[in-house]
C-alpha cells in the first residue's frame, strides 16, 4: 500500500546521544514516533516495520547538525506539526531542525553523495600556523593522496584524492585558509550552516603561534558508492606529514545529495522537497 506522504527531516545529534549506535538511534526514533499520534506508515506482511529511512549513519562519538531521515505517513500532516510532535517525544540530544514534504522519489539513504565535517585536532609539537598550513597544503597537493584502508582481512592502499572535495583550515585567531576547493560543492539554498567564513587566500596569520588545537572543515564524498571517513583522512595526513595529530572532536556539518546536473545540493533543496 502506497503511503500518502513522505516527510523529510533534518535533525541534530548532540553530546548526550553521541555514543548510541545507529541501530539504537533508529529504535529511538521508532519509539518516539510511536509515542506521538502521527500516523506513520508501516510495511505489510507478517512483520510490519515503520517506513522510516535514515541517511548516512553517523559513527559513534560524532555529533551532527545535519542528519536526515525520511518518514512515510498514512495521513495528511503539516510538516510544522510533524516537527513539533516528534520533538516533544525525542530525548535530549536529538532535535528535529527542519521538516518538509518530499516530492522526489529517491530515498535519503540511496542519495547521499557527500558530507561535510568539522574536525578538531591537536597537532603535537607543531608551533606555528604556517607549519600546519604547509603540511596540509603539501598533503592535498599531491597527484595521488595515498591512505591505508582497512577491510576485513587486509589493509589496502587507496588514492583518496578524488574523494576530497574541499578542505579549509581554521587556525590561530579565527583565521581561515581555504586549501582546496574543486568548486563542485555549490551548496544551493538552505544547506545548513557553514561554520566560519570563507576568506579565500589569507596569509596574514600564517606566522602566528598556534594556541591550542586547530579545526579542519572538510567536504568529502560520502554514501553507498564512495565514502571517505574523516578519521581515515586525518590518519593519512598525520602519517604523511609526520605530525602527531589526534582527533579531539568530529562534528558533521552537512550532508549533500546529487542534484539534476550532478552538483551537490542539500537534501532539503527546493528541487527535492516542497518549500513554503
Amino acid at each position, binding site marked *: 500500500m502506497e503511503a500518502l506522504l513522505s516527510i523529510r527531516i533534518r535533525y541534530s545529534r548532540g553530546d*548526550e*546521544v553521541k*555514543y*548510541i*549506535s545507529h*541501530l*539504537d*538511534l533508529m*529504535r*529511538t526514533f*521508532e*519509539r*518516539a*514516533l*510511536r*509515542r506521538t499520534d502521527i500516523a506513520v506508515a*508501516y510495511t505489510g506482511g*507478517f*512483520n*510490519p516495520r515503520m517506513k522510516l529511512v535514515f541517511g548516512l549513519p553517523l559513527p*559513534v*562519538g560524532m555529533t551532527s547538525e545535519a542528519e536526515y531521515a525520511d518518514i512515510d505517513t498514512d495521513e495528511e500532516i503539516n510538516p510544522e506539526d510533524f516537527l513539533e510532535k516528534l520533538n516533544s*517525544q525525542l*530525548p*535530549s*540530544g536529538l532535535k528535529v531542525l527542519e521538516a518538509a514534504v518530499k516530492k522526489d522519489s529517491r530515498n535519503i539513504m540511496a542519495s547521499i553523495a557527500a558530507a561535510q565535517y568539522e574536525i578538531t585536532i591537536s597537532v603535537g609539537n607543531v608551533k606555528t600556523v604556517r607549519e600546519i598550513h604547509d603540511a596540509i597544503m603539501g598533503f592535498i597537493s599531491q597527484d595521488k593522496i595515498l591512505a591505508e584502508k582497512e577491510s576485513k582481512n587486509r589493509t589496502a592502499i587507496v588514492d583518496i584524492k578524488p574523494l576530497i572535495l574541499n578542505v579549509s583550515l581554521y587556525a590561530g585567531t579565527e583565521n581561515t585558509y581555504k586549501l582546496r576547493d574543486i568548486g563542485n560543492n555549490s551548496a544551493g539554498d538552505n544547506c545548513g550552516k557553514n561554520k566560519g567564513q570563507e576568506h579565500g587566500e589569507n596569509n596574514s596569520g600564517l606566522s602566528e603561534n598556534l594556541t591550542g588545537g586547530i579545526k579542519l572543515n572538510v567536504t568529502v564524498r560520502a554514501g553507498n558508492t564512495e565514502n571517505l571517513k574523516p578519521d581515515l583522512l586525518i590518519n593519512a595526513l598525520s602519517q604523511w606529514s609526520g605530525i602527531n595529530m589526534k582527533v*579531539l*572532536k568530529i562534528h558533521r556539518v552537512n550532508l549533500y545529495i546529487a542534484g539534476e546536473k550532478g552538483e551537490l545540493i542539500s537534501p532539503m533543496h527546493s528541487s527535492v522537497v516542497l518549500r513554503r
Partner: protein
Amino acid sequence: MPVVIDNEILQSVEKPSRYTGNEWNMARKDPQEVDIRFAFCFPDIYDVGMSHLGMKILYHMLNERKDTYCERVFAPWVDMEQKMRENNIPLFSLETFEPLSNFHIVGFTLQYEMSYTNILNMLDLGGIPLRSWERTEHHPFVCAGGPCTVNPEPLADFIDFFVIGEGEEVINEVLDKFLEWKKGGHPRKTFLEMIASIEGVYVPSFYDVKYNEDGTVQSINPKEDRYPARIRKRIVKELNESYFPEKIIVPYTSIVHDRIMLEIFRGCSRGCRFCQAGFIYRPVRERSPERLGNLAEDLAESTGYDEISMVSLSTSDYSRLGELTEDLIRRLEDKKISLSLPSLRVDSFSIELMDKVKTVRKSGLTFAPEAGTQRLRNVINKGITEEDLVNSARIAFMGGWNNLKFYFMIGLPTETMEDIVGIARLGEKIVELYRSMQTKEKGKNLTLTISTSSFVPKPFTPFQWEAQDTMDALREKQKFLKSKLRRSITYNWHDPEVSFLEAVFARGDRRTGEVLLRAWQKGCKFDGWGEVFNFDKWMEAFEETGIDPAFYANRRREPGEVLPWDHIDVGVSKKYLIREREKAYREEVTRDCLSICSGCGVTQFGCGICMGY
C-alpha cells in the same frame, strides 16, 4: 561532585552507551531538593540490569516520593573498570554521575549467588568500605533485597541491613525511618536500631551465630531481646492494588529483555520440590485482566515499545489467561504492538493463542520435563506424564513447529543412570513421533535441542537438605547422556563448576563470606560470565581461608540440623518441607494449591489463592 568521563575513555570501551544515561523516562530531579539519595545497584552490566523488572518497579516507585531521588548504578564491564581504576574514576550513577559514596543509602538486588563478587567489586569501586563494621558516619548505609536474601548469611559481613521479601511497602517504611533518623542527628547504629523492628528487615550485626565442633550451626540468636528471633518476609497482600509503574525507562542500547513486562501474578501453586522461587513467593496473588490491560496501554503510550510480554513463574496457571490474552490482543492490535508469549504449557489452547498472535516466529517451543523418567518426575513433583509430553509435541508439530527445546536437570535426588537414559529415550520418542507424522508437507527436519542444567539444592525447598552431586559425578552423567543421544539431537550442558559454587553460597553460612572476600581480592568477578569466571582462583580462596566447599555443597543434612537460614521465615513451615521431602522419597506427588490445600503454612498471610478466587 559529578564524575566527568573523558571522551577518549568512552570511545575505547565496548558499548559506551552503558555509561551515559539520558534515557527516555529517566528520573530527573535536583539533588539539592531531596532529603534522600538512594542508589539502586544492580550487580551486573547495564544490559542485564536494565532487563530486570524489579528494578524498574522500585526505581519508579521511589522516585514518586518527593523527598527521594533514586538513581541507577550498574557494574562496569571489565574494559571500563580498567579505565576507571587507571584514571581514579569512582563508580557513579547514571542519572547525575554522582560517585557511589555520596549517596545516603546504597541498595543491591540479590538475584543470583554468582553476582556476589560483583557486589564487593562495586563497593570497592565506589570507595565504600567492604565490611559493615568499617563504615562510619561518612559512608552510606548498604542494604540488599531480592530472592537470595532468604539466605542472607554469606553476605552478612558486608550488608548493613537486608530487606526480605517484596520491597514495595517495606522500603518506604525504611525510608520514612531514615528521614526521622537523619533529622534527629543520631549516630549510625541508631538507624539500624530503628529499622530492626520493621517486619522484613534483617540487621545481621544484631545476631550471633555459634557453631558446633563439626562445623554445623549451633544457634543463631539476636544479641538483644528487642530484636526479633525470626524475621518474616514481607509481601504485598493486595497485588492488584499495589504500585506498578505506568511509565518505565526505555534504554537506547539493546538489552536482554527489551520490551514492556507485565507482571501478571506472583508466587506459584505447583510446588515443584527443587524450585525455590515457587516457595518463597507464595501465596499466589494475581493482578486482574482489567488492571493489566490498562497498564499495558499506559506503558505502550509512555514508552513507544512495540512488544509486551507477560511475566510470572508459570503463566499457564493464570486463572483468567484466555480473557487476559484476548483483551490484550484487542487493545494492542491497532497500535501494532505484539504480544510476546512466555514459555506456556504446550497444549491446544496455547497453540491456538500463538497462532492468533501471528508475530510469533515459528521458532523454538520450550518444554521443561526436568527429569527423564516418571519416577523421578514424581520425586521432584513435576507431574507431567510422558503421554502429556508426546501429546504436546504432536500438537506442536501439527501447528507447524519443528524446533523444540527440552529442559532437564541432572543430579536430582534419588537419580540413577536409569533416569539419565530416560532423557535419551524421551528425545528418541519425540524424534520418532515427528518422523511418523511427516506428511508430504515441507519435509523440514526436526530441530530438537536437549539442555541439562545441574541441580543446586536451595533453602526453603523440600530438597534443602540434599547433597549436590559432585562435579565429577555430574560430568560423568553429561558424558553418559551425550553417548546415549542420537547425533541429530543437539545437547547443551552447563559447566558443573559454576553450579558447584552456586551450591556453596546458596546454603552457605556467615563464614563463607570470608571466601567471597578472598576470591574477590584475587580478582574474581562476573562469575556468571564464562569468559571472566576463574574457578582456580575460587579454589585457592577456599584453601587459603580454610573453608571446605564440599561441606556446603555435597553434604547431606538431616532434618534435625540447625540451618544457617532458620532465623528467616518465608511463610512455608519446616514441617511442611520435611513432609514433602518424605513424599519425594516415596515418589508421591502433591497436587497444586488450587486443587487442594496441602497446608504449607502461607495461609498465615491471609491473602491470594489461599482465600480463593
